[in-house]
């Protein structure tokens, strides 16, 4: 079966896309001087793999009922989300320069003001997963073959509603549901295990009825394989623990654990230069 809406890519293409997304993230956050630059850089490979290879989307027809749906339930990680949506063709990338300016639809927490490519308004943590479950149930009822992806934050999994939704998804065996946790170990008050540990997360999700995979979230090949395995898994939902490194791709930022980073101009400039060099090579 041909999938005309799917942007088929090879790994090299995807690497370049991920770098382009990172460059957008740096530019967008640099313009405000602070924001979610570390998380955006860390998650860029997840976004590249999901939006540019795995998911079946049609930017020209964003409400197409048979599309796959992607929910960024940690809706504040928007520099990378908007960069991805722009590069994927949901809107012109020139809009990215309005990020977090008054009147712009590109707010810090993504809302549906951006358009239907933002599948739900999820700034209040823990909610988007339930919406994805509702969509997945409706698709089963309607005989649609769409898949439903949620990108959760690790800290977000402390919300009780996540576990309500996980319990139901497991009990109903929703194999059209694929949940990715962006396991960057970073939440507002510091490293996640210092705030409240999720361990043993894999065992918890397995016990909720999920097919669990633990992958390097900055390895595009590993991510694509994990999505493929999830798609091939029948009778139960999938959970991908994608271990990501905050600041990934910019040597001066990698591993710096700042939830909100003050982003001085000179650091931004060197980050841009590094990413531009990578794109030119």
């Amino acid at each position, binding site marked *: 079966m041909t999938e005309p809406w799917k942007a088929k890519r090879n790994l090299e293409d995807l690497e370049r896309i991920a770098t382009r997304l990172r460059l957008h993230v740096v530019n967008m956050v640099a313009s405000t001087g602070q924001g979610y630059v570390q998380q955006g850089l860390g998650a860029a490979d997840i976004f590249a793999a999901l939006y540019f290879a795995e998911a079946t989307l049609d930017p020209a027809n964003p409400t197409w009922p048979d599309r796959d749906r992607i929910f960024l339930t940690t809706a504040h990680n928007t520099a990378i989300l908007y960069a991805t949506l722009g590069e994927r063709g949901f809107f012109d990338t020139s809009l990215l320069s309005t990020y977090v300016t008054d009147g712009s639809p590109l707010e810090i927490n993504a809302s549906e003001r951006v358009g239907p490519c933002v599948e739900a308004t999820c700034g209040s943590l823990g909610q988007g997963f*339930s919406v994805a479950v509702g969509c997945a149930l*409706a698709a089963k*009822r309607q005989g649609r073959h769409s898949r439903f992806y949620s990108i959760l934050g690790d800290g977000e999994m402390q919300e009780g509603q996540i576990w309500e939704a996980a319990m139901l998804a497991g009990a109903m065996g929703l194999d059209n549901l694929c949940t990715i946790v962006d396991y960057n170990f970073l939440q507002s008050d510091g490293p996640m295990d210092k705030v409240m540990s999720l361990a043993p997360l894999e065992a918890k999700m397995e016990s909720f009825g999920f097919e669990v995979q633990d992958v390097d979230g900055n390895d595009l090949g590993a991510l694509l394989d994990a999505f493929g395995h999830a798609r091939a898994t029948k009778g139960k939902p999938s959970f991908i623990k994608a271990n990501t490194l905050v600041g990934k791709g910019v040597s001066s930022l990698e591993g710096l654990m700042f939830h909100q980073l003050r982003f001085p101009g000179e650091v931004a400039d060197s980050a841009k230069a590094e990413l531009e060099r990578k794109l030119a090579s």
Partner: protein
Amino acid sequence: MTNTLSKLEAADFINRSFKPLPRSYGDALVEAARNDSRIVCLTADLSPPTETDLFRDTFPDRFLNVGIAEANMIGIAGGMARSGEIPFTHSFCAFSTKRCFDQITMQVAYPKLPVKIVGFLPGVATILGVSHQAIEDIAIMRTVPHMMVLEPSGPEYHAAAVKLALEHEGPVYLRLKRPEKPPEAPIEAQTLETGRGVLRREGGDVTIVAAGLEVPEALTAANQLFDEGIDASVVDMASIKPLDSELVLERAQATGAIVTAENHSIIGGLGSAVAEVLADAGVGLPFRRLGVQDTFCEGGSTAYLMEKFGLDSFSIAQAAREVVLRKG
């Protein structure tokens, strides 16, 4: 309908008699679902008390029991509505609103989705106690943009309320009360209109604006008052949002005194809504709000609680006499 329940079987949170109760809401929902295949039904482990056991048995493929997880239920309903369905969610009023208010605002109201949130056990009317009493639900739901709020005054209006809920393109909060005993006569379905109060009794001395359980109390009070020479109007304000401002102002003009009566806190509910209309229009007149007077309640029989918290016909009649006196 007239047989007596005699064998040992599951009891019901609401029906404390040994007779089966009519399920006017449950019947209306099933009927609506026959005509509209988009309607789906969700419950959080309260099917018989929310009359949705009928739907469960009639359309099992369109029914989902999410377990005891109201926040998840609202999110799931949002997802289903985004997929072209019209979900009706069911629980008690307290859990349908207070427990998942954030989810309602973000996953239902902000995107203006056709999710119909149906609550039972309104206000004080339950033996189950303070945890199960919703005396704040109308106040909070009224503040939510796009939200319609309906509280029909009896089972004869339940089918009409379902119809209005479906006519409204966005979200609706439907606050329902099951009758506590079987009706003596067959229920005759009545109609309702969005944003229109029903003038249930017309009199020129005072207007009682009531909703839900308070409407029959207001009608009883009006009969008592009539014997004393006070002729009261009774407005059944089932459509709390949008409110019938026109009727409020017209009755204010015609009678010169208003009492509001609600099975809810006096803060933020029907009484507040009527006061807002009057104040916005610059109308000053003798006015009283009856309801729960900024206090928590307790479990008990409905008649006991209505008397204790000043919601019965006696209290309404007393308030009406007072405002009529104040007219001078």
